[in-house]
């Protein structure tokens, strides 16, 4: 069962602390969204989990192994896939199938050709094997990234604002694809969109490097005061409810646009 334990970590790039006394644990198949203002430390956390930055204070255990244990860092990296925001800067090969093969080759896996075929087919890019990745459309590039991640068969998937360049439909499609192919895995996604986070199992808010909320989407994303503190735009329905409240109209708490509609229909 995949697991991440973040145990009282603090981190600084040199100036002040960018993360301070941060703790949480995540286990099994679970989708966690992390939200917070620009500079609140979200990407730093991702880099620490993957052992890309040196951790000195506190500890992070990935599948029970400490990221501070240099001998095991390769094992940790093999169990994690990261997809960043900008796919263009992540392609490593001029041909899609070679790009998809990069991870498995790096980890000296067997049956690479088969892995590549399966990965590309899972994201419906089988017909694009020989394409130059840069010539794919935005949505196809994101699929290609997912294929590359899938090829290393990770337990843990970290998405750092991965699909934010896509339109709503495209983003929902990628979210669904990710949820489908990695439903047994641990997914942590970083986003600025509370509406996107509604569908995850759990939501964490960071503010100034500290964890200020950790709970279900309903617990966290309906709380306008918490969201304001973390500089997160509330979900659409929550914003509308808040605006109505300012105009003296009270309606029960809502999280989704569907719920908002239903509540408003009660005014007859």
């Amino acid at each position, binding site marked *: 069962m995949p697991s991440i334990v973040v145990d009282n970590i603090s981190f600084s790039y040199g100036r002040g602390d960018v993360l301070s006394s941060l703790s949480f644990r995540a286990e099994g198949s679970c989708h966690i969204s992390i939200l917070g203002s*620009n500079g609140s430390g979200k990407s730093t956390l991702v880099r620490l989990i993957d052992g890309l930055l040196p951790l000195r204070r506190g500890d992070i255990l990935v599948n029970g192994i400490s990221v501070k244990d240099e001998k095991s860092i390769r094992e940790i990296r093999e169990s994690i896939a990261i997809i960043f*925001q*900008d796919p263009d800067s992540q392609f490593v090969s001029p041909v899609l199938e070679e790009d998809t093969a990069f991870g498995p080759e790096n980890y000296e896996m067997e049956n690479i050709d088969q892995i590549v075929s399966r990965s590309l087919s899972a994201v419906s890019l089988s017909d694009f094997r020989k394409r130059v990745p840069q010539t794919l459309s935005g949505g196809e590039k994101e699929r290609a990234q997912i294929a590359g991640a899938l090829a290393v068969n990770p337990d843990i998937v970290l998405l750092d604002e991965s699909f934010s360049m896509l339109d709503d439909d495209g983003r929902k499609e990628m979210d669904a694809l990710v949820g489908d192919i990695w439903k047994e895995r641990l997914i942590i996604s970083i986003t600025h969109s509370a509406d996107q986070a509604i569908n995850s199992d759990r939501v964490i808010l960071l503010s100034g490097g500290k964890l200020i909320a950790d709970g279900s989407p309903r617990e966290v994303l309906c709380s306008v005061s918490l969201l304001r503190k973390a500089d997160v735009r509330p979900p659409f329905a929550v914003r509308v409810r808040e*605006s109505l409240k300012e*105009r003296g*109209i009270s309606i029960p708490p809502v999280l989704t646009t569907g719920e908002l509609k239903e509540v408003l229909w009660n005014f007859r």
Partner: protein
Amino acid sequence: MELSLSHASLKRDTFHLSDISISIGAGLTAITGKSGSGKTTLLSLLAGLIRPDEGKLSLDGKEVEGLLPSCGIIFQHPERQLFASTVIEDVSFALRRSGLDRDEIVSRCEKVLSLMDIGKEKWNESPFFLSGGERRRVAAAGVLVTEPSFLFMDEPTVGLDSASYERLYGILDSYRKESRCVVIVTHDQEIAGFADRVIVLDDGRISADCLPSDILSSDIVRLSEALGIERTSDYNKLVSGIEAFCRGRKWN
């Protein structure tokens, strides 16, 4: 002030723009469309950054050769626009070349960096030591500091936190009030709904050019429709509409 692209066509290996004719005046214009439909290319044509294979770009009837004058462009990955060794050098780059005097440059840079909420302690740091959103804000500051008459932005909402998002609204609104010409490429239906005009691209052609509420299907538009109140793409109008809707009825 009228910027016109007439019968512009452009062909590349993987996509094309065909016979595009549009005129854009003061105010806020949003360009939307599927990924790969040619939005960024159209933006680049309007800014004079690339030339069409056929057709031409003109400003108030005169053909534009090269880059459009008094034009600022914030690209889709503005962090790639950053190059100087400190934030302040980066932001002041264009002004230093313009021959303005030092004090004026400093005060304009300070103003725009404060506007973008980039703390003083970061001004002498490398822009590469910033978070993703902070970098985007610094890159935007470097363009806004020149106070361009034409402002082009490619996906300006991506990666912004709530405060920065609200600030973007403010900037768009003040540029509009100052009768500047702002063109944004965006997939964000809410910000597109705030525009005066929306142009939709489909496979290299303009498939619609209309008011935002005529075309968008954002949560805002859909909710206004579902409630049977006036169809709108503007958040504040939606809330006013719902308010009237609720006041005219009884809760049960």
